C-alpha cells in the first residue's frame, strides 16, 4: 500500500499548497474556518469555545447553514482550511455546499468538525457515515446511562452523561490529564472495527445504551455498552482530520461552566472537563499537534556522501531521515525510538530501527543483502494520533561487475599450478619430441 502514499501522506506539504492558498507546508495549522450554524444563537451560546479558537489565531467565519451565499471554494481554490458543522438539523445546505462538496473538501486535505444532536438531520448523518461513523438510526434515540450519568438537581432521564472513557493518547488529548468527566448529551454512534482510520476518543461506559428516553424500551437497543462512541476522530489517508460527536451541547458555554459529579462518585468537580477536552481535541483536529513531516531522506555508502544511483550487493550503506513535529507555531524535532526503515523488495530484507540524535535526525547503517533487484527504502510510520509517514525511495541493487570478483582465489592455487605445470610440461615435451632426432 505504502508507496503510492508518498505524495499524499508523507509529503502532504507538497500537495496542499496547490489546493489551498494559505495552508502552507511550513505551517500546517488551519487558519480560516467556516462555521455553519443552524441559528446564530449558537454563536453566543457556544462563545467560550469559539473564543478559545479565535484566541489561538483562527479566523472564524460564521454563516447560517442554509445561507444561499456560502461556498467552500471559488475558482477552484478553497476559501477555508477547515469547516465546523454546528448545524445538526440542517436538511440542505445553502449555496454551493452539499454532501459531495464537503467530502471533496475533506479529500483535498481539509479538516472538519461535525456536531450532531438528537434528531440530527439525514444530511449530517450522511456526512458522518461517509467518514466512517454510524449514528444510531433511530432519530429520537439518545445515549442513556443509568450508572455514569451526571448528577444533577433533578433525577432526569439520565441522558446527561459524565463520560470519562478517554482514549489514552497524549497526542490527541494533550499531555495534561483531563480530570473531570466530560458532560455529554446527545446521540451515540458506532464504528466499524475494521475501519482503522477512525478512533473512539470518548466512549460510553459499559452500561450505556442508545434508545428513546421518552418511550418505553420494547426491543433491545441496537447500540449498547462501550461499543457506543460519544466522540470519535477520523484521520483520513491524506491526513485530513475529522471530529464527530453526537452532542452539540458539549461545546456550549453551559456545559463548559457547569460543575460535574459522576453518579456513584464522591468527588464533585467544580468545572466539567468539557472545555479542556474540546480545546485539546480541536488542537489535534486543526493540526496543532501530532503532525509529522519527514524531510531530507538521504542514503549513501559508508564513507561517502554522494547518493549513488544504485548499490551493489553487500555494500554498506547509511540511511538517514529527519522527522519533525509541528507544535502549532514551529517545527520541533520529533523524538521516538520506534521509527523503522525497511529495505524492501516484495518483502523486507532488512528491518532496522532508526536511532535518533534528539534533534530530529534518524539514521542507521546496514549491509545491502546478497540479493540483487529493485529495492525500496521504506519508512512506514503509523502511530496513534500522529499523521502517518509513508516514505519510499526506489533504489536498484546490482550484482558484482565482471571485474569486482576476486582475481585469484587462494584455494585454487593447486589448480593454477596444475594448469601451468601442464602447459610447461607439454611445451617441453613437444620441444624434445620435435627436435631430439
Amino acid at each position, binding site marked *: 500500500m505504502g508507496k503510492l502514499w508518498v505524495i*499524499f501522506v508523507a509529503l502532504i506539504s507538497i500537495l496542499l499548497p496547490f489546493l489551498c492558498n494559505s495552508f502552507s507546508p511550513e505551517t500546517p495549522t488551519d487558519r480560516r474556518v467556516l462555521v455553519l450554524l443552524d441559528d446564530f444563537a449558537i454563536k453566543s451560546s457556544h462563545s467560550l469555545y469559539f473564543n478559545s479558537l479565535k484566541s489561538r489565531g483562527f479566523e472564524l467565519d460564521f454563516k447560517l447553514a442554509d445561507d444561499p451565499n456560502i461556498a467552500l471554494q471559488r475558482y477552484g481554490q478553497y476559501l477555508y482550511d477547515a469547516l465546523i458543522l454546528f448545524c445538526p438539523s440542517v436538511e440542505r445546505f445553502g449555496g454551493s455546499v452539499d454532501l459531495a462538496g464537503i467530502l471533496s473538501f*475533506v479529500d483535498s486535505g481539509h479538516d472538519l468538525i461535525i456536531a450532531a444532536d438528537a434528531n440530527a438531520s439525514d444530511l449530517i448523518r450522511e456526512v458522518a457515515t461517509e467518514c466512517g461513523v454510524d449514528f444510531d438510526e433511530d432519530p429520537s434515540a439518545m445515549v442513556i446511562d443509568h450508572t455514569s450519568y451526571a448528577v444533577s438537581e433533578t433525577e432526569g432521564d439520565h441522558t446527561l452523561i459524565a463520560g470519562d472513557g478517554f482514549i489514552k493518547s497524549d497526542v490527541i488529548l494533550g499531555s495534561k490529564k483531563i480530570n473531570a468527566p466530560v458532560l455529554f448529551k446527545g446521540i451515540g454512534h458506532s464504528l466499524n472495527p475494521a475501519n482503522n482510520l477512525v478512533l473512539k476518543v470518548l466512549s460510553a461506559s459499559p452500561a450505556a445504551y442508545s434508545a428513546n428516553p421518552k418511550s418505553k424500551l420494547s426491543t433491545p437497543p441496537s447500540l449498547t455498552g462501550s461499543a457506543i462512541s460519544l466522540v470519535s476522530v477520523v484521520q483520513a489517508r491524506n491526513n485530513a482530520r475529522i471530529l464527530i460527536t453526537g452532542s452539540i451541547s458539549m461545546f456550549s458555554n453551559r456545559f463548559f461552566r457547569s460543575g460535574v459529579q459522576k453518579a456513584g462518585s464522591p468527588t464533585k468537580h467544580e468545572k466539567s472537563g468539557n472545555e479542556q477536552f474540546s480545546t485539546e481535541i480541536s488542537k489535534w483536529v486543526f493540526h496543532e499537534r501530532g503532525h509529522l513531516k519527514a524531510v531530507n531522506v538521504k542514503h549513501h555508502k559508508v564513507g561517502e556522501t554522494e547518493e549513488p544511483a544504485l548499490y551493489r550487493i553487500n555494500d554498506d550503506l547509511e540511511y538517514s531521515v529527519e522527522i519533525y513535529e509541528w507544535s502549532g507555531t514551529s517545527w520541533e524535532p520529533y523524538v521516538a525510538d520506534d521509527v523503522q526503515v525497511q529495505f524492501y523488495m516484495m518483502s523486507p530484507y532488512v528491518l532496522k530501527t532508526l536511532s535518533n540524535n534528539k534533534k530530529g535526525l534518524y539514521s542507521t547503517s546496514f549491509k545491502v543483502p546478497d540479493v540483487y533487484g529493485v529495492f525500496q527504502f521504506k519508512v512506514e510510520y503509523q502511530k496513534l494520533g500522529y499523521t502517518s509517514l509513508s516514505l519510499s525511495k526506489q533504489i536498484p541493487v546490482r550484482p558484482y561487475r565482471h571485474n569486482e570478483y576476486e582475481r585469484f582465489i587462494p584455494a585454487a592455487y593447486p589448480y593454477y599450478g596444475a594448469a601451468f605445470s601442464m602447459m610447461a610440461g607439454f611445451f617441453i615435451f613437444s620441444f624434445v619430441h620435435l627436435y631430439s632426432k
Partner: protein
Amino acid sequence: MAAPETSTAAVPTLMTNNSLRNAFGGVLSFFILLLIGVLAFSIRLFSVIKYESVIHEFDPYFNYRVTQFLTKKGIYDFWNWFDDRTWYPLGRVIGGTVYPGLTLTAGTIWWFLNSLNIPLSVETVCVFTAPIFSAFASWATYLLTKEVKGAGAGLTAAALLAMVPSYISRSVAGSYDNEAVAIFALIFTFYLYIKTLNTGSLFYATLNSIAYFYMVCSWGGYTFIINLIPMHVLLCIVTGRYSSRLYIAYAPLVVLGTLLAALVPVVGFNAVMTSEHFASFLVFIVIHVVAFVYYIKGILSPKMFKVAVTLVVSVGLCKLICGPLYSDISACITSGIALSQAFDVFTRSIKYQLPGVSSTNELDAGETSSATAEAQNDAVKTEKTEETSKDRPSRKSKKKEKEQVEKPSTKAKAEKKRLLALPLEASVIALLLLIMLGAFYVVHCVWAAAEAYSAPSIVLTSHSHDGLHVFDDFREAYGWLRHNTDVDDKVASWWDYGYQTTAMANRTVIVDNNTWNNTHIATVGTAMSSPEKAAWEIFHSLDVKYVLVVFGGLVGYPSDDINKFLWMVRIGGGVFPHIKEPDYLRDGQYRIDSQATSTMLNCLMYKLSYYRFVETDGKGFDRVRRTEIGKKYFKLTHFEEVFTTHHWMVRIYKLKLPKNRIRGKTKKSKSKTSSKRSGITKKNPWH
C-alpha cells in the same frame, strides 16, 4: 572480399588450358556474386517500402534497446548491465543472459559509420543489419558450396540462399533478431571447416574456431555446429576416412572453440558442463584414440599390429568382463581375437559399400587419396545442403541437378561423350522444365518476401472494400504511456508486450518476453484471472500503476489477450492453485458470451477488455469470437480507464488509489437520498 578468392578458386575447377576464359569466368562470378548480394539485400526491403523503417515484432525490440544501451554506454557497461526496468522488482542481469553477437555487430557498424561521419540512427542500423548479413550469408554459401563442388554450384547455391523464403522470414529489414547474423556465422563456420578439411591448414582451423566463436556470441543455435561437426568426424572415422587433416580440422576447433565459447558470459561454464557439448568431447577422445592407433599402425608391421590389437582388446575385455574373477584368460584372448577380427571385417565392409572408396581401401594411416577427400566432400556437401536449406531440400537438390545438367550443356563440345547419354529433345525439355521451375521459384520467393513475411506486426494493415486500413494502435498506446506517465511508473501486461513496453514506452514492466521467472509470470496471470479486488491487491503489491491489455474484439484482431487468456489461467493456476481452469470454462468450452461462467465474466481480463465495449455498437459484438459478450454493462471499482487507442486494440487502465476515507455501514435506504447515492454506494470498494 569475394573477388580475389573467386578468381583464384575458379582456376583449377574449370578448363585448364584457357587462362583468358578463366579470367573472364572469375570476373563474371564476381559480378554475379555482387548481384546476388544486391538481390539478397533488396528482396528483404519490402517491409521498409510497404511499411516503414521500423523494428519488427517483439524480441527485436529488446535487441534494439540493448543496442541503444551499448552505443550509449559502451561495451563494459553493456557487459555488466543490470536492467532495473524489467521484471520489476527482480530486475534482470542483461549482460550475462544475452547473446551479444548481434548487438555488438550492429553496434560496431553504427560506430564505424559514425566515425566516418555518416550519422545514421541506431534504429536504422538495426533495421538493415539483417539484410546486410543476408548478403554475407549468400557469399558464405558460395564459398562453402564452391569448396565442396565448384564455382558454378556455389553461385547457384548462393542465389538460392539469397531468396529462400524461410530465411527471408527471419531476416527481412527490421527483423533484428539473433538469426539475422547467426545464419551467416553458421554457414561461414561450416565453410571454414570444409576449407580446413580440404587444406589441412592450421590457419584455417584457427579461423574456424574464431568463426565458431562469433556463432556462439550470436545465437544459442551454435550447438548445431558443435554437434554436427563431431557427427561428421565420427562418421569419417567409422568409415575409415581418418586422416591428419580431419584431426587438424577437428581438434583445434574443440579446444580453441570451447575456450572461446566459455568467454561468452551467457555460455560460460555451460561450454563444458551441459550435455549438448558432450558429443564433441567424446569425439575428441575418440579421434585421439584413433590417431594413436593409426600412429601405432604406421610404425608396426601389419602382423605385429594385429597382435597388438588382439593383446589390447583382450586385456581390455579381461578387465571389463571378467573383472575381479580373473577367470579363464585364454577364453578372453580368444574372444578378443574374434572381436578384433569382426571389427576389421565390419570396417572393411563399410568401406567396400561406399562408392569411390573401394579402390583406396587398402591405404594405410595418414594417406588418403584425393578420391577419398572428394567422397568426403560429397558427404559433407549433402549434409551442408540440407543444413542450409532446411525447409526445401527437394527443391534445392533439383536445382543442383539442373545446375549439373546446365553446366555440361554449355560446354557441350568439350564433353560430348557424356552428354550424348540423353537424347537432345529430352534434355531440351528437361532444361525448359527446370528453367520454368526456377522461374516459379523466384516468383514464389518474391511473393513470400513481399506478402507473407514483411509485416512488422506492430503496425497492421487490412484491405477492405473501402480501401486500406492501417492499425497503428500499439505505437499509439506506447506513445501515450511514454508521454503521459511518470518515468518510474510500472506497467503490467501479459509478458508478450514487455519488450515493446520497455523499448517503446520506456516504462518499467513486471514481466517480459524473456520468460525467465515462471512465478512472476504466474503472478501476473493470476492477477488477470482474479476478480477486480484481488487483482488490484496483487498489482498494488508489485507497485503497478498501469495495466495494459490488448483487445481485438472491435476490429477482429485475433491475437489479443482474451484469446491468450486461457494461458494466463493455466500458468497462474500452475503456481497459485486457487485459480482453476475449469472455473473459466463452460462444459469444457472457452466462451465469453452469455453462457460464460461467472468466474470468467468477473475476472479482470474480461472486465478490462470489455469495459464500455457495448457503447461501440450497442450490442457488444466481439468480432474475433464472433459472438455477443456475456456481460455488457458493468463498472470498474478499482481501476479506471485512462487510455484506449483508436481501434480499441490497446486499452490502458490505471489503478485507483485506495479511498481516502472508509465509509461507515451502508444505512437502510432512505427515500430521500437513495436514488442520488446508489451509485456511490455500489462503487465504493473500501467498505
